[in-house]
């Protein structure tokens, strides 16, 4: 069977800061009540991962996060035999661990993974709630506390890399987006340790960049980058410089767009 894993190491001990925008906390709690799998949709850096952490803390359940990429295979999720000096040993993957011990399994940026990897979750996400470990010959029945959560950025994925309908339709989905200006400013104030006026200006700068989405920018500025800028300002960096470094330079190399956004910083900070 393998050694018993201490699942409590995956619990969140300290409350993560999260500000509810649109009843998403209630919605998630309801979904968790019946252990429905949940899909979080939204642009990068708008709070999806933070939200799941918050809910895990609130529900006092352990959470296992997997960052998906093109190279992960089914066995990375499910588990594999490893060879050691004594022979073979089965090690559970994160999905199996969550199912076995009753944790929330959070697959982040799931579209990046190959589609043949994704089918392993199908049996876990319908009424069967079981995971077949073929190589081991074991059928794992999911713990009553187990729940699967995935995140998905519908924005810049190519046509080739979309989720199959058979996968999509196993989840209930919640839309996430950047919060309204006031809430975002509050988040930036709290996380970045700056005053309200500075936070509001940073939000306004992000807004200018978001206006350019589709006009030369693939993606606007995320809340996360604003928090970085705020932290730099809190460290004593001059606001113009902090904003350029944390918010503009990472998102674009196009000279005209840079100049326009640098100008926005000058105009907004004055």
């Amino acid at each position: 069977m393998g050694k018993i894993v201490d699942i409590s190491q995956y619990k969140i001990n300290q409350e993560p800061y999260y500000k509810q925008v649109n009843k998403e906390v209630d919605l998630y709690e309801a979904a968790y009540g019946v252990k429905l799998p949940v899909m979080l949709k939204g642009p990068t850096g708008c709070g999806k991962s933070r939200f799941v952490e918050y809910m895990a803390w609130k529900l006092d359940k352990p959470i296992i996060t997997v960052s998906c990429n093109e190279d992960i295979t089914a066995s990375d999720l499910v588990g594999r035999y490893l060879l050691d000096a004594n022979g073979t040993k089965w090690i559970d993957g994160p999905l199996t661990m969550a199912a076995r011990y009753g944790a929330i399994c959070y697959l982040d940026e799931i579209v990046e993974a190959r589609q043949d990897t994704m089918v392993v979750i199908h049996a876990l996400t319908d009424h069967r709630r079981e995971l077949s470990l073929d190589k081991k010959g074991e059928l794992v029945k999911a713990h009553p506390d187990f729940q699967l959560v995935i995140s998905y950025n519908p924005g810049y994925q190519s046509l080739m890399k979309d989720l199959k309908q058979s996968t999509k339709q196993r989840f209930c989905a919640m839309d996430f987006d950047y919060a309204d200006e006031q809430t975002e400013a509050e988040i930036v104030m709290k996380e970045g340790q700056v005053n309200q006026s500075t936070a509001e200006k940073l939000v306004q700068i992000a807004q200018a960049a978001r206006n350019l989405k589709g006009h030369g920018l693939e993606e606007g500025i995320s809340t996360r980058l604003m928090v970085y800028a705020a932290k730099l300002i809190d460290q004593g960096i001059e606001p113009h410089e902090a904003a350029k470094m944390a918010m503009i330079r990472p998102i674009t190399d196009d000279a005209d767009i840079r100049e326009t956004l640098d100008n926005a910083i000058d105009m907004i900070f004055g």
Partner: protein
Amino acid sequence: MSPEDFSEYRQKFTCKFPQAIEFFDENIEEIRSRLTQEQIEQYFQTANFLCSIGQGVEPVLAFLKYSTDLIEKLGVDVAQILKDFGYKLARSPDKNALVPFFEAMQKISSHLQKPDDLQEIIGIIENFIESTRTVIHAHQLIHSSEGLIPLLKSLAEIMFKLDIEGLKNFIEYGTRNYRDTPEQLVEYFSLKSHDAKSIILRERKGTTFQSVENKLYLFLQSHWNCEFALSAYSTGIHSIINPEPYLDEEMMALPDVYDDTRGENGELVSGIMQYYATLSHLAAHSLWSEKLMADNYAPQLRLFVSVFEDARVDTLAIRKFPGLKKIFLALHPYPEKNVCDDLKVSTLRFRASRLSRALLDNDFKPEDKLMSEFRNQFKALLSDNKQSSTAEMSKLATDYFVKSRLKSDSLPDVYFENTKVHYRDDNRHIWYHYEEYDEADEVPANEYKNDSEILDIDSLPPRYYHEWDYVSESYRPDWNTVYERLHPSGDSSVVESLMTKHSDLAKRLKRLIEIMRPQNKTRIRFQEDGEELDLDIALRSFIDLKSGQVPDLRINNSYKQFNRNIAVMLLVDCSESLNNKSEETGQVLLELSQEALAITAWTMDQLDDKFAIAGFSSNTRNEVRYQHIKGFSENYDEMVKARISCMEAGYSTRMGAAMRHAAHYLKNQQAEKKLLLVLTDGEPADVDAKNPQTLIKDTKKTVEELRNDGIYSYCITLDKRADDYVHEIFENHFTVIDKVERLPETLPRVFLELTS
């Protein structure tokens, strides 16, 4: 002026022409008030001289009329300079240019600072005359310089836009290119031809709208989240009314150029910043201004409504973007108190401008109780983050106007100096009328629109491409006009029968293609699951296992189909020479090209490559014909074959322009390798390029440009004598086909070799 003085001056002036004397009598008073004694002496000396050179009354009359400004501004030496050159000109075949010369000098006097400047301009003119004067039989018969008078007439406008260096470049370009074609020379120097306007735009100091257009759109989108079409109006001196920026439902109009300027405190405000300021003001209006019925307001009152409303939207804009404040204040005029007398002139605009400054600038002291009081009211309406409204501003304006009105406001003489705020618009969008008139609002002209385009229903609007001039090592802007049209269709069965004719060749090629395909597989290593065991890695893993370490399980290889990631553009020369017959077989070259094209297209289709085909020819630089045969997104189907079937040949070979046009399609393709294959039978040439080197060098430059854009150019030529030039243009990337009848075989083979 006393009668004694009058007769004294009269005696100094020895000219006998009645018109000159008449002019003298009418203007001597004014001239005396403007010039010093010494200057007047020179003035008369020169006039007398010009009278005596035997060229009639025109020279002296022109001098009398137009030189006063110059002498007054630049001093007495100017008269001598004018006299010398005037004399020279009068004795030359260009004597008709004398009057335009004096006229032009007067008009440009504001651009000259010292007599040396005048000398420099005259030197430029002399060079021009020398280079463009037509000389027949070496001095036996000299004709006038055709372009001189147009140049002199345009000089004022050119100097308004360009500095002396720019003027020299402008003249040099026109001289070099049109020296031998007098009609075009005149058109260029009259500023009518398209490239004259392009050159001026290129040489113009300041920030032009064209050069920053993209940034302006981005600015509007990011800062104000609004989309307006942007257009530019000309700010040349020929505009009778000074145009102002304006806003309407879908469009914002801006000046075509902003020069860097200095603000009130000497700080530099760049051209692009001025554009941003104007755009911000216009966007603020579109966001916050409402309409008022014009009929309810007298014109003078409308001025004040504008002042208050402009100040309000500027204040709101500054609230949104604090950084705008210092830019607006730098650009807003700072009218000093007491510069005009309100008994003699209308101080309406002056007061409005002081009020406007007061509303925007807290540090500005109006020193006028009424103005201060209304400033306070204005600020109160906008305090605590309030937005107020256009209607509230109009009430405020009416109140102020009524209380501040002066009798002198209706005097015809209005004090205008330093009262215009250049980043603000004419506010036409605020006023609507009870009855809509038929007259449209003033739309200032855009002189950069090209009127000489041939519009044809069948062809796409023309595109302009630069051409490289190897003599001056610079580009001729917008020199070539390329018209693209769909190639006419014929009977696609012609192509089918060609394929049948070459069926042996087709079989051989097919075998080649098959060989090429399977080899195009790539191996992917380090796979946990795969098609084939990689023995080396497997051994390593086993060793690890034996030594007590955890082995790497990725011991397999798998194979993936390697896609040929190629896009090819096949550009076929369809010039007149293709109607010639091949020396060996007697077959028309055009037919051979068709065959080769059909087979190559079939080959590319078999390999699933992305490809496009087009034919080209040219009839002077103004009509480069590009015939679209197949686009990248089209399949190689009946329609395409039908077009290949009826290819025709005619005209000349302006290769550079056609290649540039083809390249712009190729650039948009997503592919690792981009190939431009040019099939031709001779060197680049055209009827209006007398020097054969011109187009050869331009094509060479095109190959370089394309290379910088990631496009690989290759030439297949039927010209046995191609070695003279093709090496220069294409370096090693060419194939000369000696046996022309083997073209159908060679073309696809070359293609396959290039892309394997």
